[in-house]
């Protein structure tokens, strides 16, 4: 990209400053060098603007995952992503993950192999979930607004393992399922973005909202708090584990199947509608 706003005069002025001061003038004209590949250092004002902008943008269009990702990064500091890193460092497996820094992508996860795993294993469920929802492991953006390289990795890991959370809970990628997962993740990771995403509950239909508040929110909060830190699961090593075994180990109950409920409701509605129509037709025929 071409830096259009820098006039030669102001650039000259900045360069005329003594080197210590030059590095301190952190502005659009002069960014500190990135701490890792793809890192974009931000000032406080920029971070705030990013948070606000991405929050409204993602509320308008919940399918803009790039905006949701930016919102997550802009609100992760201070405290929240550091807390998550601490939680990983406290746990032997979490430490191993931070040491190895494994990444999940279609290169590291062969979907072919996952599909051949026995029924009800984590890998099979993950592959089945990806197939059912029509997403791939590569749909996750790279973290770029978090300054510390290790904390950036923690955020990346949270993002990449988000799909596994879907897989072991079986919740679908539609807004309603996504909200339940976000509420679960908020109770589990305390990342603010997950709580902010819950604002999208205003977009639900009344019946869905009722279901969310009565069934899925209580499930999400109680399980999120009860369960172990899900970020400490070394998913790459759990692919052959039975889903029920892993869920029990983490202390997560299986939520009611959202797709099934919706299907049942839909069928019920259809049946009602058919019955009503039949009745109407009958009424018209008999002239009542």
């Amino acid at each position, binding site marked *: 990209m071409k830096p259009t706003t820098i006039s030669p005069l102001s650039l000259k002025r900045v360069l005329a400053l003594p080197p210590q001061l030059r590095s301190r003038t952190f502005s659009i004209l002069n960014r500190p060098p990135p701490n890792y590949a793809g890192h974009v250092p931000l000032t406080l004002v920029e971070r705030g603007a990013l948070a606000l902008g991405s929050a409204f943008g993602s509320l308008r269009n919940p399918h803009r995952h790039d905006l949701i990702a930016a919102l997550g990064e802009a609100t992760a500091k201070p405290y929240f992503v550091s807390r998550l890193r*601490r939680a990983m*460092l*406290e746990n*032997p497996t979490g*430490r191993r993950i*931070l*040491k190895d820094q494994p990444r999940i992508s279609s290169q590291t996860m062969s979907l072919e192999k996952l599909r051949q795993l026995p029924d009800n294993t984590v890998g099979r469920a993950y592959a089945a979930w990806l197939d059912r929802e029509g997403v791939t492991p590569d749909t996750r953006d790279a973290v770029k607004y978090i300054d*510390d*390289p*290790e904390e950036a990795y923690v955020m990346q890991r949270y993002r990449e393992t988000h799909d596994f959370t879907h897989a072991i809970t079986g919740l679908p990628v539609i807004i309603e399922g996504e909200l339940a997962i976000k509420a679960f993740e908020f109770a589990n990771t305390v990342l603010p973005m997950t709580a902010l995403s819950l604002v999208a509950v205003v977009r639900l239909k009344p019946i869905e909202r009722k279901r969310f508040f009565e069934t899925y929110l209580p499930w999400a909060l109680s399980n999120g708090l009860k369960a172990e830190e899900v970020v400490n699961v070394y998913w790459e090593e759990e692919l052959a584990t039975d889903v029920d075994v892993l869920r029990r180990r983490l202390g997560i109950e299986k939520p009611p199947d959202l797709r099934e409920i919706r299907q049942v409701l839909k069928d019920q509605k259809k049946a009602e509608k058919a019955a009503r129509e039949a009745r109407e037709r009958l009424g018209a025929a008999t002239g009542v």
Partner: protein
Amino acid sequence: MPSPALLKRLLALPPSLRRSFWSSSATAAPAGKPDIYDVVCVGGGPAGLSFVSALQSHPATRALKVALIDSQDLTTSRTANDAEKYSNRCSSLTPSSLRFLEGIGAWEKAREERTQAYHAMDVWDGVSGSKIHFDMVDKQSHGVLDSIAEMVPGSRFQASRRKYETSAEDGVVATMCENSNLTAALLQRLKDFGAGEQLAQVQMWDKTKVDSIDLGPEAVDEKSLDLSQWPIVTTQHGQIAARLLVGADGANSPVRQFAGIPSHGWDYNQHGLVATLHLDHPFTASELRTAYQRFLPTGPIALLPLPDNKASLVWSTNPQHAARLKQLSPSDFTATVNAAFRLMPVDINYMLTPSASNQAEEFAWREPATPASSTGLPSPFPRITGVQEGTVASFPLRMRHADTYTGHRLALIGDAAHTIHPLAGQGLNLGLADAEALATQLAYGMEHGMDIGSCWCLDGYNSERWAANNAMIGVVDKLKKVYSAGSGPVVWGRSLGLEVIDRLGAVKGAFMGAAAGTR
């Protein structure tokens, strides 16, 4: 039997003197009767020895008949001569302690090449990384007016102050000294008193256990002494009666138990781990040195400079961690100590769990991932490269304070009177201040003709030291508690407080003055 004329003259004397005549004649009593000493000091540690030296160096108390009893062998010099080896028991002597030691002529006997003055101190919070820096410039700033005077254009205040600073003889925050070096110096000083101008007044009984302390027998007839209010110390050398019994016999003081003085306080459920460490580069004697202390939620860890490339470690931590640290191999121990200064508390806790191994590798991985700016690490922080063999030791930490320091014919000094958390390095300094105050009080008593064992004389000592020590013990105890918090509002509050104090030179100077014992 004295002649009637002498008896008449004797009876004309005031009662107190008359009594002392009888008692001094009673010291020549046949065997079986206790020997009477003016001062019997139980315990030959730094507090006891400096107290006896102080008595010897004051003209009013020089003539007192003094006995010093210690269970250990005091004659052999316990200072190692090897310049590469340092004892793990070191203390930081504050300027006021040094002044006292110089005054009694003991400091010149110390091996100066084994002591190390430090000129600045960096203290930082292990959770939030907020930090405070102390040096002598803070202590010399006198307040807001100074700051204003500095800002006046053309003011020569800065120049004059700079002159003042260089003329101030040292700018030393405190001086590190091995306890064995100090003890040897004090013993040498006492030996010189004996060999020098006066007679050997101090009866030294080392390798001597106190078998019992009781009150003496009542008078059997009008000629014998009534010692029923006098403490009688029984040792292998026989019985001695003390006009004043001084307990400098440590935290489990038998003297305090004899007096029935209760000592209140609590155990911290922490161990103080000490070791002598090697640093990555040597320092010359003239270089300015810095002491470092980091407050971790498990307890403070301090790195105190010793000559050349040596340093003394004092790490207060929970008993499990202390036990684990003592099991580690030297390289893992070194890595863990480096980690304790440089990594996040969560990493340190992990490295000290029983299941964790290979701390050196763990540290090598975590160090690059932990930027110094996030932990508050002071910028020129030395790297620890090794530990002197056999110096890793630990002891339980507690807080105790005796209800009173004095009783009838009895006084407590040093650890016998109080035990304090080592985070401010005040334990020995309070003991030396006690010794100085008690010796001064006895000199006052002698000059004014008091019985030095009476409450009349001793009350002044109790009132001078008890409240001051109580304040110091209380502050250190609260600091320890405030810094035990690992997260939450307490951390925010203490970090804010530290940052504010760091910016207020005068307040900081006042804190330093209090810690240095200036009155």
